[in-house]
């Protein structure tokens, strides 16, 4: 009698279905790494960029060339302003009877920087001396770079996607093919079916988090300042919360189209609002309470606190509470609504 426990068999089925779907492997493992690598390269820390500007008189050019972070060209006012319009120079320094006029786009950070640098150079050339002596010390420590900000965001986004997609598609597909009905016609206890999703998710989670976090650590030196146990608690709680959301989405839908529409509807706002790629603080204050209550915001904020600041679990208790609330609420409603046939 070589009969395995039904829960083991069901979990094995989940695994086999996942492993035998090459697309799923790509989206869960390869895609986040490509994304992290691409964004890490694009936003890598580089020495301050040299800004291109134009000046209309040779003595202005001479004064400006004293500043190494500016690349100055001598041009007549007409062509210089044309280049400014095209964005090919960040600033035009134009002589005027009263002194110098700076033309630049004040909403463009490069324009503002160029203005500061150009003004300093011109004033210094004219004999201004600084009353206070200053010196620069650069902070380029791991933990405060963009890639450090990005990796926890990608981890959270990935956990949300794989839990919701993994749960949603599998359940709706089984319902559509009447496989759910067939399973219900056996003595299989129904909760085993749902439990098998949770078990397989937890096992895959280890690989999923390991791959992305490991990539960040090895390739970009992203820090892991929190304890491994704390990180595990956060990942498990977050993943379970999203499994519940996925189950709720899949509880009634009969077609893949309906389910994927719902999934996008649920995930899209969180991709934008929850601070995956940029800080959620950028949204207006009025939105903040709503943004803080989203499960992805809670997960990403707590992951950042854990990885980058080494926060203890007690410090991310509010976020854990939000995740647990989502988990319990969605699971409860999903069980009430769930349609097996």
């Amino acid at each position, binding site marked *: 009698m070589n009969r395995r426990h*039904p829960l083991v068999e069901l979990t094995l089925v989940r695994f086999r279905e996942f492993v035998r779907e090459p697309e799923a492997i790509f989206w869960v493992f390869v895609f986040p790494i490509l994304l992290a690598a691409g964004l890490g390269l694009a936003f890598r820390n580089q020495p301050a960029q040299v800004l291109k500007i134009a000046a209309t008189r040779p003595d202005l050019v001479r004064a400006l060339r004293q500043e190494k972070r500016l690349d100055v060209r001598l041009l007549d006012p007409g062509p210089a302003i044309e280049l400014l319009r095209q964005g090919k120079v960040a600033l035009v320094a134009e002589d005027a009877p009263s002194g110098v006029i700076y033309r630049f786009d004040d909403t463009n950070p490069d324009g503002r920087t160029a203005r500061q640098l150009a003004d300093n150079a011109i004033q210094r050339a004219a004999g201004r001396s600084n009353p206070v002596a200053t010196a620069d010390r650069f902070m380029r420590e791991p933990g405060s770079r963009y890639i450090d900000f990005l990796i926890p965001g990608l981890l959270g986004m990935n956990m949300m996607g794989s839990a919701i997609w993994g749960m949603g598609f599998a359940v709706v597909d089984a319902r559509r093919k009447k*496989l759910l*009905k067939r399973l*219900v*016609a*056996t003595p299989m206890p129904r909760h085993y079916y749902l439990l098998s999703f949770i078990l397989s998710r937890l096992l895959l989670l280890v690989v999923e988090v390991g791959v992305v976090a490991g990539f960040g650590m090895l390739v970009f030196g992203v820090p892991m300042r929190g304890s491994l146990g704390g990180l595990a608690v956060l990942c498990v709680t977050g993943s379970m919360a999203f499994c519940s959301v996925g189950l709720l989405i899949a509880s009634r839908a009969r077609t893949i189209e309906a389910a994927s529409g719902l999934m996008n509807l649920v995930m899209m706002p969180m991709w934008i609002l929850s601070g995956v790629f940029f800080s959620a603080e950028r949204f207006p204050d009025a939105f903040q309470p709503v943004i803080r209550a989203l499960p992805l915001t809670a997960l990403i904020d707590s992951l950042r606190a854990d990885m980058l600041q080494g926060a203890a679990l007690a410090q991310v208790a509010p976020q854990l509470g939000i995740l647990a609330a989502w988990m319990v609420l969605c699971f409860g409603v999903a069980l009430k609504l769930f349609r097996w046939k």
Partner: protein
Amino acid sequence: MSPVPAPPALRVRNLRKAFQDVVAVDGLNLEVRTGECFGLLGPNGAGKTTTIEICEGLTDRDSGEVDVLGLSWEKNARRLRERLGIQLQETQLSEKLTVHETLSLFRSFFPRGPSADEVIGRVQLEEKRNSRVGGLSGGQKQRLALACALVGEPDLLFLDEPTTGLDPQARRQLWGLIAELQRAGRTILLTTHYMEEAERLCDRVAIMDHGKVIALGTPRELIASIGAGHVVRLSSDGRTLDAAAFSALECVAAARTEDGAVEAQVEHLHDALPALLNELERQGQPLTELRVHSATLEDVFVALTGRRLRDE
């Protein structure tokens, strides 16, 4: 010394079920005896699937009684599930699993029964043991579905249209497997709209139409009930023949026209054939086609309802 009659494997009394305002099952009575293969034969929409799914505990009934293996779904659902083998009409098993993996999964749900490999042997899928379900032919998939119904060594087997959509060869192979189960003494309830399937496999058949049983008996009894062992079909170059004149003949039990041709149900060919030909000559119509076949369950259905089992 009379043997104690075995209790029926399935008893359905006055079963009713409506979906919105469509009545699917309308006061149905059934009794399946232990050890027999019982067929529900009827056209699409007769209520066969609704009936079998109520018996399988998958659909709730509106009213009536259903006893399965002496147990009721309300009180003994879990125990019943362990003792039933079920094949649904259109389950698509997971395409990414192999035959053996699928059966191991189903086997794990039942407390007793043969091993996955044993069942694979019973449905002749040994060569496909490690093939993905997605790569199986229609007939192989149906055999796998049958195997899934057998893994729990069921006391009662429900087969809902087991051969629908299969090509003739695959159908015959599946019939062979079901006939084997029947010979081994399994209790089977099967639904079908193929009269040949019911005639070959079933010990008793209930003919269903509009949610009711309109005839019940062994295939032989049902065919005998129309009082005519043969059906004679006469065509006259596509002209519409007068059926009434033929049915008035003494040796003809009933006659009807279909696409102009006459179909006459007769008991004794040697009396009826000359009489039919005489009548055709009397009408002055040439004979262009003559076909004779032994009466089938299809003819029983036609005699009872005036319609065919399958609308072609």
